[in-house]
């Protein structure tokens, strides 16, 4: 597969290591009251869609950026890729 790296253009998937569901970016607050429940969900529960999936790829043999790649798991069509850092910052309420 070819991953459309937002800064470097199309790169072969062989340069990357795959992690999984991009929901891993949204780590719960470990000091909160309900941490036990929220962490159980975070560590163990996953949607496993046959279709469009947002997932984390690490450009290990490249620039070592983590990317959030939107990929259709049934056709392997890749609809887009962003720097995970940008996705994470946006989720936390804007770039810093």
């Amino acid at each position, binding site marked *: 597969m070819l991953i459309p790296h937002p800064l470097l253009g199309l790169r072969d998937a062989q340069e990357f290591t795959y992690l999984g569901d991009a929901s891993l970016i949204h780590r719960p607050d470990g000091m909160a009251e309900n941490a036990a429940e929220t962490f159980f969900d975070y560590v163990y529960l996953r949607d496993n869609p046959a279709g469009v999936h947002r997932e984390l790829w690490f450009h290990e043999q490249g620039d070592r950026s983590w990317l959030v790649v939107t990929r259709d798991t049934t056709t392997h069509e890749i609809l887009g890729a962003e720097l995970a850092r940008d996705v*994470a910052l946006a989720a936390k309420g804007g770039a810093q």
Partner: protein
Amino acid sequence: MSRLSGGLIDRSQRLSFTFDGKSYSGHPGDTLASALLANDVRLMGRSFKYHRPRGVVSSGSEEPNALVELRSGARQEPNTRATMAELYDGLIANSQNRVGSLAFDLLAVNDLASPFFAAGFYYKTFMWPKAFWEKLYEPMIRKAAGLGSLTKLADPDDYDKGFLHCDLLVIGGGAAGLAAALTAARAGARVILADEDFRLGGRLMAETHTLNDAPAGDWIAALEAEFDALPNLRVMRRTTVFGAFDHGIYGAVERVSDHLATPGKAVRQTLWRITAKRIVLAAGATERHIPFANNDRPGVMLSGAMRTYANRYAVSPANRVAIFTNGDDGHRTALDLMAKGVEIAGVIDTRTEAKALGKYPLFAGAVVSNAKGRLGLKSLEITRDGTSHWIEAGALGVSGGWNPNVHLASHHRGRPVWDEASLAFLPGTDLPPGMVVAGAAAGRGTTHGALTSGAEAAVAALGAIGITAALPDLPRAEDAPQAQSAFWHVPGKARAWVDFQNDVTVKDVKLARQENMVPVEHLKRWTTLGMATDQGKTANVTALAVMAELTGKTIPQTGTTIFRPPYTGVSLAVLGGGDTGAHFRPRRLTPTHEWAKSQGAVFVEVGQWMRAQYFPRKGETTWRETVDREVLATRAGVGLCDVTTLGKVDVQGADAGEFLNRIYANAMASLKVGMVRYGLMLREDGHAYDDGTCARLAEDHYVVTTTTAQAGPVYRHMEFARQCLWPELDVQLISTTDAWAQISVAGPNARMLLERIVDGFDISNEGFPFMACAELTVCNGLRARLFRISFSGELAYEIAVPARYGAALMGRMVEVGADLGATPYGTEALGVLRIEKGHAAGNELNGQTTAQMLGMGKMVSTKKDSIGAVMSRREGMVAETRTLVGLMPVDATEPVTAGSHLFDEGAAQKTETDLGWITSACYSPHLASGIGLGFLANGKDRIGQVVIAANPLQGQSVRMRVVSPHFVDPEGGRLRD
């Protein structure tokens, strides 16, 4: 010699070859198959199950029968298609799958037992009596399995791989592919044209159609001259594009020197990974045959192949041939062979309305219903309106229609679509992205159709990526529609073969239907039809047409099986990419590697690293002797060990401390500048992940160490935390594992030794206490880092210098420390020392253990959030009773085996009574006994008790005393001296 006139062979040269020990000759341009036919050899092999005599059926890569063992010795290659083996001088080939000679195969007795080998027989036989399986049936089946045999000698050849990028990949160099490549190359696009054959032209070389009223070869030669001059076009002959992968990535194998007697300096084959923006699939079509009784006699072949042999290879399989056809195409063979002086016994056409296209006997509305001639066709039975008679012929060309080669178009699970008008499966609409199909592969099989569709496909493909291409002037060519009828097989009682290679007959298809193996994927696996090395290229469509008939369904309703790469077989050697032996994967050497080698060290693989395992001295006869000496010397004087391989990550930034607080379970932000702290990392699920040290060199500068094995994963994990979890923190990371040579200096004389190399820096116990760190210089000005940390439990340090000085530093320390007993030690002694001290390492952090089990439960801070902290407090984790203990055999002569499981004495040993396991073990020269570390249920409360260490695989059951894991210096006094 049945050699005809013309052909693309070079008669000025003779090539000698042998087949089954007999000598023959042929010409450059011949394949082994054409040369054998030219020498009147029709018997080329024995079939898989029934060992029936077989001859060549095709002239291409779809060949099911003529599989030989090519070459001898280490290069012997089984299952080589004689149709693809280019003839060279000195070629040696042998037939396979026979006991005795090809003409007198003893295993032909299988043919008599054929009712027992019907479809699915292995699901129904070899089951009783049960005891016979291991000793009789399985060995028998293994012996009978497969076709050819392997030499078991190492492959002496080199293989290579490479990467290509293009705008347009044209797969197939026949009429359509040539037109496409010409169109695209002239437009300035970057083009790759690949064909599996050693010549370009495809079926243009097999037919007698003219282009602009001249031989097709003239046009091909002109194109090749133009191609040679175009720098943007890469022509790859002998190259099979075997698979269509994601996003325009295609795999191809270039057979660089398969056609030579030996490769010489060249590689044998190259694996190419081609990334193409657009693709034109011009893979042509494969002919199908028509099953009838005994249709597998040597001499019965595809009619199109008979034409290829006559026109391209100037050979006829016999002096008198017949044709069996269900359409106009078979008549072409009669015309072409007649034109070369071959006698036509007759054309048997299934269509009652068929007309002869030349002066040969025609049997319209008739079928071939039987064939005689076990070792070579002698006669054929022709049946019409219930009446039969026999005619003599030495070969029969069978024309059942043509199947477009839709394989690569279907590699992304696309399904081809049945076209009733052309009686063929055409590529569907769900093609791999970026692919266009042209020529016979798209059902445009006339010469004009192929040329035009090829050029048009190139224009369309390039247009989609913004390159404008013009249609070239294409030569005038025939465009005759080929009438045909839907006639799939001749019904009858005797066996009629569908899949020649796996010996599957129409009867087998019927049996599958009877046994309710009806869906085509079941039909395939039940009968093994289409599962041989040819993947049923000449059989699949016929089989499903027969199944459709039997079930009363239509062909499209019956459907096709899934097409998967590779299109034709790919050698494992070329898939390996070229490097074998020591270079199979990268090797990482430490900075002191050459020095250690010069000291006679024995090395061990630790992942990709080579590490010195131990340093034998003269007179030492066993590794244990050496290791014992190294261990004793370190605790008595000072030992030196290269520990560069442990991962080092440089962590900087205003929020570096806060970041480390979040990835370590224990507190790290509170670490003072100039100090080092042990650090434990957890996985988010609460298990122990990795451990190491964290040194604070400055306010905003830390160095984190990891275990050797986890260096890569931990770095990835840290980048994940930095970029994905806490991108708002100001922290930067970079690996420095290789940058610094790091040497452990351990033992009571360690400080004295270091004082001799450190440049005027106070490393007294007060000036540089336990767990201190500093940047300083050594050996007259070389920048270095010193860490007072201990894995061995002794007074110990780790000294780091830029890697290029590592070897020199090691040598210097051995030299200046000679009187202090300076002793190099390797990974074995390193392991003994840390086990004696009770330090956890990789074996104890195997992913199944927790901080609590390691005795570090309190280290997991509750005052801050860190990765894994929350989940480490789960009920099940907290309720875990197994803790780290030391173990010593009650009888010191007994071994301690890591991996042994622990049980109470007298307990039945099973999962429910399992109390834990031994993680690490070694011989301790200090205790003169084997010792081990392990996890034991309620271990802390069982110190002094005896448990059993069970190793049932090797029949061991050893009584162990539970002791403290700190075998040596349990108070830790030496560390702080």
